[in-house]
Every structure is written in C-alpha cells, then in structure tokens.
C-alpha cells in the first residue's frame, strides 16, 4: 500500500512542475538548477486514498554533494519500501546524464517509476526516445510526460502501483556509465540538425566578450523595464485609487473623528497642513496601506515579473559564469549571483537561496553581503521616494556607495572568514521560451508571499511609531544616540528613530524622515544608512534560522561597523 510518493531527479528537470500537476499545490519553478531548496509537501487523491507527495531538491546522484542534496537522499530511506513510490523525473532532452541517478535508485532497491519529462522539448531538439524499450531494459514503468501541458501525468498515476523494486547489482561508477552508454544506443535516436539561432545565442552568452555585452544589455533593459512598469502601475493605477477614491472617504472619517482624538491619531494620524498626507500622516488607514500598496507593491510586481522572465529563459546561470571571476575575490563563486539577485526583490528569499552554496563560509559571506549591501524592492522604492525629486545623481549615488561597500566588505570577509569556499561545478540549461502559465503562477506566489510577510509588519510598525509619537516616548531614545547621529553622521538627532525603525521595516522609516526637513546631503546619508542596515525584522529571523545565533550576532556587528564607518566617511566627504 503506497502511503508516500517521492519526486526525485536531477536539478532543473521540472520536478516542481510535476509536483504542482500532481497536488495542485503551486510552487515556484524556474529554468536553472536549484530553484527548490526546501522539501515541498502536498497531497494527492488516488482513488479513495490520500497520499502525501514529497518534492525533493534536485540531485545528480545518491552520493550527496550539498546540504540540500543530503536532505533529499536521507528522506528516501526513512520509510519501509513497500509504503513508498519514487517517481524519478528525467529530462528527455538529456537522458544519458539523467540515467545515472535512475540506475542508482534501482540499485538501492527503491520502488521506482520513471517519468520521461519535457518530451515535447526533446522532439524539438531532434531527440526521440523509445519509452517501451527503456521500460523493458530497466524493468520499471517508464512514461513520457510533459508536465507543463499536463500530458502523461494521468498515465503516470494509473501506473504508480507498478513501481516495485527490481533486482540489480550494485555497480561501480565506470560500469554504470558503460551500462548507460549501451542503453542509450538502444533507446535514443538523434536527428541531426543545423545550429539554430538559440544555440548561437547560448554559445555567445558564455564567451568572454560577447557574453559581457549580452549580460550588460540584458541587465540594463531589465532595470528599465522594472522602472517603467513600476512607475506606470503607481501613476496610472495606485495613485488615482488612493487620491481620487480613498482620500475623500478618509477626509470624511477624519472630520467625523475630530482631529484631537486618540483614535484619529491612531487611524488617520497627523494632518499635514490640514490635509491627510499619505506619506507623512503615519496612521493605520493612511500611511500603512499607502506605503504597502502604492509605493512598494507596484515595484514588487514589476521586479518579480522581470526576474521570472530571466529565470525561465535560463539567463541566470550564464550570468553566474560571467560573474565567477569577480565573486571569487569575495570568497564566493559565480552561482552566488542568484541569491544576490533574488535579494534585490526581498532579502528573505535571497538568504534562503544561499542553501545552494555548499560551504558554511560561503553561506555566511553571501547572507551577510545580501543583508547589508543588497537593497530590497521596498527599500529601493523608499530610496526613490526620498531622493527621486532631486537629480538622478543622488539615487545612482546610493547604488554606487552600496556597490563599493559590497565589494570592500566582500574582500575583507574573504580574507577573514574561516573555512573554505568550494568551486563552481554547475550545469547550464538551454535557453527556453518561458511558459506564460508558469510565469503567472510564480508571480502570483511571490506577490502573495510578499503581502503575507510584509503587510502585518508594516501595520505593526506604523502602529508602534504612531503610539510612541503620541506619548512622546522617542525623546528619551534620541537623547542617547544624539552624539553618534549628530556628531558622526551630521543628522538631526530625531533621525535615529527612523534608522532604528528601519531595522523593523524599512518602508515605515521613510514617513518619519519627511517631517524632519533634511537637506539633500542628510537625506543621502540617511538613505545609505538605511540601505546598509538589515532591511527588516524578517531578515533577522531568517538569518537566525539559516545560520544560527552566532553568525547573526557576527553579521549584526559587521552591519553596525559598516554603517558607522560609511556614514561618517560620507559626512566628511560630502560638502
């Protein structure tokens, strides 16, 4: 009786897509190795029976090479073999390499059923596979599937009960590859084709000169598109809703409550020049939703849309190769660029994605660099909000300072952090045309994730600030930090409130800065300091969960030092 179904396969063969098909649970899938770093669970109804489906992170063999692979492999042995079925998902376009894991699964005596996935793409590449013949040779069911369209999935489920252990000798590595060679001869036929445009592009993007040109072009266009979509969502949708529909309602509520009452302070906040100011009023119904939905959410949508495209096309691993040289100086290898890019959306998934890096040292360096030097979307929206009305020089200035901080800190960490940084050995996927459905699901999941994670914090943050302001509790606090803030950074002492609040949630901090009437220089320094400090309380939590208390304390100290040094230097350097 099958109680559990495991999905296992090489990285980037579409396990997550099969998982979504089987369970209806939507998960994020992309076109590069290592999208899934966590074990995903869902359930499936087979006849009358509810079965748990477990999607394991991709692995090339049963001899694990990274932490996520180790977890995947150990789970397989936890249950009695007659209570599980293992669906081995195989990339049809690359059967040869995938069969290595398949043979290991069979040798381990696991009840296996093989899903030859991406069969439509294989056809496209001129690869034709004989599933029946393969089934006869290896002795377990083999089914052609195409998870993106859903074809073959029904058949896969119908035959799942046929997954049984087969007798197979344990082979040496070499014998296994010989065996695979013989199998491939019998089941695979290749039609020779001329080089396609796609292949020419694939090659060009991993060559030094053409690769750098392509990468710069792609990143530049991506940045422009993110801005374009974000700005338009704000000016055409979010702002009109807030100003034309929502504000009149609030104005009525405001006069109903009376400006002096505590509840008015709580819900609406302070009136600025007799009117509600969404950015400065700091009420639960004014600033909190405005920050969340009109300032940050539009950029979250545009950022994740563009990132999703880059992921599904398969551009990121190529970027990783090009960045390898540079990242080596920071104690990382090229693949660390993926967590960093994710961090530009939100640091939390960025830090989670460092699980793909093999050594603890690399994970510490990457997570620290992300939380200190990589501004998340919310923070970037704030930088634009603070400095956007001055010349673009200031906005780019913040990014430039962050880049320098990032590089210098990385080099220092590389020379001081203990442990080793392993090298890069990774597979580059073919370029693929993204499936709109996958893109849409992914965007939806990420937006939902953002809202669930950020919305309560923003609300809580605004509430906290609001109450503290009402009872004038900040004065005590500002007194203590006045020497640092005034002396070193050249900021008014009240700015500390916003800086500290920034640790809780960056977007809340900005509303507190606007009433201070800072000069451009002061705004610039504050923006840099806000960027350097951890973006939000959730980042602290995930850092702690992933790397432990000791590393979190280390990273926090590093953050404080970097902030002090950078803030003071900027204060001295700028006139």
């Amino acid at each position: 009786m099958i109680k559990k179904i495991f999905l296992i396969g090489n990285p980037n063969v579409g396990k997550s897509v099969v998982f979504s098909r089987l369970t209806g649970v939507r998960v994020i899938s992309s076109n590069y190795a290592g999208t899934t770093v966590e074990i995903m669970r869902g359930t499936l109804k087979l006849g009358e029976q509810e079965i748990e489906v477990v999607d394991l992170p991709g692995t090339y063999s049963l001899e694990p090479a990274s932490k996520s692979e180790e977890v995947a492999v150990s789970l397989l042995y936890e249950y009695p073999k007659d209570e599980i079925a293992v669906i081995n998902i195989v990339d049809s376009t690359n059967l040869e390499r995938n069969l290595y894991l398949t043979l290991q699964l069979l040798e381990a005596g696991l009840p296996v059923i093989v899903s030859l996935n991406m069969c439509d793409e294989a056809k496209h590449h001129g690869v034709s596979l004989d599933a029946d013949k393969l089934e006869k040779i290896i002795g377990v069911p083999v089914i052609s599937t195409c998870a993106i369209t859903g074809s073959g999935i029904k058949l896969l489920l119908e035959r799942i009960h046929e997954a049984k252990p087969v007798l197979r000798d344990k082979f040496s590595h070499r014998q296994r590859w010989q065996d695979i060679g013989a199998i491939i001869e019998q089941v695979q036929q290749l039609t020779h084709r001329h080089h396609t445009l796609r292949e020419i592009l694939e090659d060009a993007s991993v060559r030094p000169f053409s690769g750098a040109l392509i990468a710069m072009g792609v990143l530049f266009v991506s940045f422009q598109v993110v801005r374009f979509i974000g700005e338009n969502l704000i000016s055409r949708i979010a702002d009109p809703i807030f100003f034309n529909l929502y504000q009149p309602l609030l104005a009525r509520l405001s006069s109903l409550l009376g400006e002096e009452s505590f509840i008015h302070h709580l819900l609406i906040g302070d009136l600025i020049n007799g009117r509600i100011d969404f950015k400065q009023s700091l009420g639960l119904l004014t600033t909190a939703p405005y920050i969340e939905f009109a300032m940050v959410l539009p950029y979250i949508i545009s950022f994740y849309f563009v990132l999703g495209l880059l992921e599904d096309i398969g551009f990121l691993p190529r970027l990783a190769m090009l960045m390898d040289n540079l990242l080596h100086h920071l104690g990382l290898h090229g693949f660390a660029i993926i967590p960093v890019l994710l961090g530009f959306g939100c640091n939390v998934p960025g830090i989670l994605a460092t699980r793909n890096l093999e050594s603890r040292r690399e994970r510490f360096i990457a997570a620290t660099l992300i939380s200190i030097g990589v501004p998340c979307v919310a923070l970037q929206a704030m930088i634009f909000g603070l400095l956007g009305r001055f010349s673009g020089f200031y906005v780019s200035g913040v990014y430039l300072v962050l880049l320098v901080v990032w590089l210098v800190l990385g080099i220092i960490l590389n020379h001081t952090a203990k442990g080793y940084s392993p090298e890069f050995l990774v597979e580059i996927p073919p370029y693929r045309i993204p499936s709109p459905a996958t893109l849409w699901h992914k965007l939806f999941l990420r937006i939902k994730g953002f809202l669930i994670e950020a919305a309560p914090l923003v609300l809580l943050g605004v509430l906290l600030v609001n109450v503290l302001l009402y009872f004038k509790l900040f004065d005590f606090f500002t007194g203590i930090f006045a020497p640092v803030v005034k002396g070193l950074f050249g900021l008014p002492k009240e700015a500390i409130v916003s800086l500290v609040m920034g640790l809780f949630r960056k977007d809340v901090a900005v509303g507190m800065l606007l009433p201070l009437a800072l000069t451009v220089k002061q705004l610039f320094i504050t923006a840099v300091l806000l960027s350097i400090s951890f973006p939000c309380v959730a980042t602290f939590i995930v850092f702690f969960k992933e790397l432990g208390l000791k590393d979190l304390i280390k990273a926090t100290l590093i953050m404080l030092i970097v902030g002090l040094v950078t803030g003071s230097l900027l204060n001295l350097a700028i006139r």
Partner: protein
Amino acid sequence: MKKISLRQMKEKQKGIICDISAGQALHNKFMSMGIYHGREITKISSIGLKGPVAIKVGRSVLVLGHGVANKVTVEVE
C-alpha cells in the same frame, strides 16, 4: 596526441578525459555529472585567465570553476 588541461584547450576543440585528480567527494560529483575517464568532451569557452571553463559533455553544458577545471586533463589530437 598530447595531454593538456581543460584550460589550455581551444574553443570548439574536442578531447578525451584522461586524468582527474580530485578527492573522493569531487570525484563522485564529476562522475554523477558525466565527467569521467575516457569521456569525450568539447570545450565551449573560458572566461579570463583565472575564470571558469564551459564544456559540452554529451548533451549537457557544464561550467567548471578555474580550480576544478585544472584538475581535469584531456588528451587532444
């Protein structure tokens, strides 16, 4: 026939892997990705003097960091 490292190969040059000097863990990883003694590979490119190397093994494109690439010796015409 001469023996050279992956780095020294030219773009589009083919070669047969004749030596891998790696510890057990890396050896296993190489093995599972299809890099093993006697396997034919084609070099695609390398980045800079101390950068990674891209090769084609069967139908997959693999990228090896500089240090890893130096551990693999190939025999070329």
